[in-house]
C-alpha cells in the first residue's frame, strides 16, 4: 500500500468513526469514545507531529461537517490538530509498548474534551464533568484496542 493510500485509509476510517459516533449518540449511547480521533493518534505516533497535526486538522473538519455538525464550527479541527501534534511528540522508533499507547491516547484524547470544557467555562456554561470523564475513559479503552492495529496499518506491518 502506498503512502497516500495509507493516509486515505486512515482518513476514511476517521469518517466512518465520526458517522458511527453521531449515530450511536442518537440511539441513546452516552459517553461514546471519540473514534475519529484514534487514526489521528496512530498517525501521530507513527510519523511524528507534523503528520499528526495535519491529519487532526483534516479529521476535525470531517467530524464538524457530519450533521448536525460541530458547535462552533472549526473547534474540533483545532482541538484534533493539537491532539495529533501531542501524539506526534510522543512518537517512537520501533515497537510501541501498549502502556505507552494507553498513556498517549489518554493524554491526546484529553485535549478535545478539555478544550470543549474550557470553551464552555469561558461562555459561562455549567460543565458536565461526569460525561466528560466517561468519554475520556471510553476513548482510552477504545484506543488501547484500536490504535496498535492502526499503527501497524500505517507502518505496513501485520495488524494483529
Amino acid at each position, binding site marked *: 500500500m502506498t503512502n497516500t493510500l495509507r493516509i486515505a485509509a486512515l482518513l476514511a476510517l476517521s*469518517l466512518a468513526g465520526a*458517522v*458511527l459516533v*453521531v*449515530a450511536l*449518540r*442518537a*440511539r*441513546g449511547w*452516552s459517553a461514546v469514545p471519540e473514534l475519529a480521533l484514534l487514526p489521528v493518534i496512530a498517525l501521530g505516533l507513527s510519523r511524528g507531529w*507534523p503528520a499528526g*497535526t*495535519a491529519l487532526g*486538522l483534516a479529521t*476535525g*473538519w470531517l*467530524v*464538524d*461537517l*457530519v*450533521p*448536525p*455538525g*460541530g*458547535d*462552533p*464550527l*472549526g*473547534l*474540533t*479541527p*483545532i482541538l484534533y*490538530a493539537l491532539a495529533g501534534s501531542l501524539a506526534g511528540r510522543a512518537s517512537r522508533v520501533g515497537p510501541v509498548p501498549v502502556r505507552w499507547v494507553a498513556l498517549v491516547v489518554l493524554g491526546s484524547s484529553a485535549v478535545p474534551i478539555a478544550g*470543549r*470544557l474550557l*470553551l*464552555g*467555562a469561558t*461562555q*459561562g*456554561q*455549567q*460543565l*458536565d464533568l*461526569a*460525561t*466528560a470523564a466517561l*468519554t475520556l475513559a471510553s476513548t482510552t479503552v477504545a484506543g488501547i484496542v484500536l490504535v496498535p492495529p492502526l499503527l501497524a496499518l500505517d507502518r505496513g506491518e501485520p495488524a494483529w
Partner: protein
Amino acid sequence: MTHHPRRRRYALLAGALITLLLMGLDLADPDSTVPSTLRSAGAAVTGPLLTAVADTFPEPPDHGADLAATGARLALTESEVRRLTGIVDLNTSATLAAATDSAPHAAHRVVTARVVGLGTPTATGPQRLTIDIGARDGISEDQTVLNHEGLVGRTVLVGATTADVLVLGAQDLIVGARTDSGLLGTVGAPTPADGARDPGQLTFSAIAIAHLEPGDVLTTVGSPDNSPFVAGIPVGTVVSVDPGTGRVGPAAAVRPAADIARLDVVGVVVPAPAEPVSAEADR
C-alpha cells in the same frame, strides 16, 4: 530542514489560521454565510450516509399513536391558550384571511421523523441533532420539533433530506413558557449564576413576582405566526425553586419533558395545507 517540509508546515499553518477564522465567524454569528454554507454542504454529502447508517439500527418502538395524541393536544391547548391570553391567531381568523385574500390554516400537522444523529456534546451536553426529513418533506427553518413527551427544539438548518434541530438546553435557545397558573417566563440553559443544577436540568426565570412550586408544569407560550414555537407544548416540570437572589421574579430548576439523550421518533409541526373558509370557523 529541506524546502519541501517547510512548505508543508506553512500549508498546515494556513489551514489552522483559516479554521480559526471560520470558528470566530461562527461564534460571532451562527447564521453567517460561510459557516452556514459549509454546514449545508456537509449535510448534503454526509446526510445520506448518516441516514443509511441509522437505518441499520433496529427499528424504534412505534410512537405514532403518541404523536397523533400530541397533535390533537396541540390544537386544543393552542386554542385554549389563545382564548385565555386574548391573542388573535391570524392564521385561523377567517375574517382576516378573507380581508387579506388568503385561506386560513386549519392549524398544524405533525410530520414524523427519526433522529439519525446527535451532535458532539459541548460542556453542557448536545446542542443539535439531525432528523431524517428535510425540505423535500415540507420542513423549513424555525419550526417546532417535539416528541410524545414534549418540546425538543426548533429546526435551524434544513437540507434536502435531513434537518438540524437546535435542542432545548442549547445555549442559543430560549423558550417563552408559562405555568398552569399563568405565570410567564423563559426557559433556557442554566448558567453558573443559577447555582447547582443536575445534568440536563434547565432554568425557568419568571418575569413577575408570583408563587412557584415544585411540580408546576411549564408549557410553551407560543411565538408570533407560530414560528419557531407553537403554543401549549409541554416544556418541563419545576423540580426546585431557587432561593431569591435579587431577581424580579422567582427562578427554578426544570426537568425537561423530553429526554434529549433518549430521543428516537420526533415530530415537526408544520402549517397544515390551506382549507376553504367555513362559516363555523368564523364564529
